[in-house]
């Protein structure tokens, strides 16, 4: 048994189950659902399978990969995703502090529909996401109809299983329409 302690009493999730259900996207076809669950095998595109992520880099970058923690330069306040040692703006070395961007308000800087990228649900909506307070990251958009994407659209980050390759689940963050 795990003892979670008294801290859990004060914990509130970022959004409740009810909110998540309410903001879900209806109209998902059963065929799409089965495909995503790997129970309906379709002819693959003539593209390589996704590559298996490697354990040593995953462990080293755990805070970035699982908690979306980037860095901010303490000299010039420029945000960096993923975290960096050298500041892209002022060149300062090792003057960064950790900053979690997972809950930072963000928006579409630009985007494209990628018909060539591997996906269980093409086309991939690929965007550059700009974060309030500074910082930019190239991210896949999810839970969105490609027709509804526009520059400036309000987004939020969401934690997902990107894919599973050779038995290894690859978890990371995508951006979805802000709620």
């Amino acid at each position, binding site marked *: 048994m795990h003892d979670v302690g008294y801290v859990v009493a004060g914990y509130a999730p970022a959004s409740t189950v009810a909110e998540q259900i309410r903001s879900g996207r209806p109209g998902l076809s059963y065929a799409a659902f089965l495909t995503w669950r790997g129970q309906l095998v379709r002819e693959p*595109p*003539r*593209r*390589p399978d*996704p*590559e298996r*992520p*490697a354990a*040593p*880099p*995953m462990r*080293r*970058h755990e805070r*970035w*990969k699982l908690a979306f923690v980037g860095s901010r330069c303490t000299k010039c306040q*420029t945000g*960096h*995703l*993923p975290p*960096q040692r050298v500041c*892209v*703006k002022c060149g300062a070395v090792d003057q960064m502090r950790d900053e979690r961007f997972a809950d930072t308000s963000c928006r579409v*800087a*630009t*985007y*494209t*529909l*990628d*018909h*060539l*990228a*591997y996906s269980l649900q093409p086309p*991939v909506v*690929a965007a*550059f996401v*700009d974060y309030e307070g*500074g*910082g*930019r*990251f*190239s991210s*896949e958009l999810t839970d969105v109809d490609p027709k509804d994407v526009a*520059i400036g659209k309000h987004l939020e980050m969401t934690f997902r299983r*990107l894919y599973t390759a050779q038995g290894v689940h*690859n*978890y*990371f963050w995508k951006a979805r329409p802000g709620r």
Partner: protein
Amino acid sequence: MASNGIKDRVAIVGMGCTPFGEHWDKGPEDLLVDAATEAYRSAGIDSEQVDAYWLGTMASGFSGLMLSEALKIPYKPVTRLENMCATGSEAIRNAAYAVACGAYDLVMAIGVEKLKDSGYSGLVGANPPNDGTLSSMTAPATFSLLAPAYAKKYGVEEGTLKQVLARIAWKNHKNGAKNPKAQFRKEVPIETICKSPPVAGMLGIFDCSGVSDGSAAAILCRAEDAHRYSKHPIFIKALSFAAGPAEGYYSQDYDFTTFPEVVASSRDAYRQAGVKDPRAEISMAEVHDCFTPTELVLMEDMGFSPRGKAWKDVLDGRFDGEGPQPVNPDGGLKSFGHPIGASGLRMMYEMWLQLRGEAGPRQIPEPKLGLTHNLGGAPGRCVSFVSVVGL
């Protein structure tokens, strides 16, 4: 900070280039033998006369051994290098410095790629072991971002921009149709280009360069030795390279309408070559048209067109084969094809033919200065090479 240049100190005295295309029956070693043999013959030399080699390939082989084993080179230096899609030009740049400094007298720069050996559709790339968070955007997707950004910034209606992009593809196919070594040798009507299946964003199949196999090679020596090998050498006026800090991937200031790396490398090249007005002084150029919007933006980054005006120059035919400033007279990446390790050398090959009056139906009347531009990476995170060559 110094980038001193080696203007008029290095000459190209021989070149070879295989046809580019789907060479199912040829491996990388076959293409290397073909290109090298043609280059030796072009310079009128035996292979033993070459002192050192620079081999460019992105992913078709490792180590200088790839070349030394294929050509049975006896114990000479062979450097394998890579700088993404600018690999071929990087081979030229490094080989040129080696003769300029006097370390060697006669060298070869050679590039090769066997993209079709992957068996996949489109360009594929392999990453070193990583944490699974790398961007999975394909090359067409990254470059497709240039188009809507350009349209928005300069007030060009998207329908018009689509026509501009199609015109660029049309021009390059028209040029390639006159080129026996190009992968695609048919003119393509603008309507066909506009209607082609979508690949990414505004880009259809015809907005994307050919995935192809091929090899090309150059023989270089110091300018004062050129007469020993060729009656009609061409001379390097400038070689520049800029690797960016990937600012576009971190900074909200990057707006996807320019490549700062191209601006930096072209400015350095013009300074080395003494070019004050590239629009007036550069007679012809081979540029990195991996996708149609890339060529559009390059015209402004390299100073051929004023900011926001390249789209008009394109529609006016300024860069057509018969226009005042032909761009990609050999068909470009678009119709000649883009075997990564070879492309930069293939660009130089067209400058070689044009400056020597050997370009046949593509011949530009009395060109003075030629420019080659080679880019690797993506908008916001790339490397850029520019050379200026002439007689």
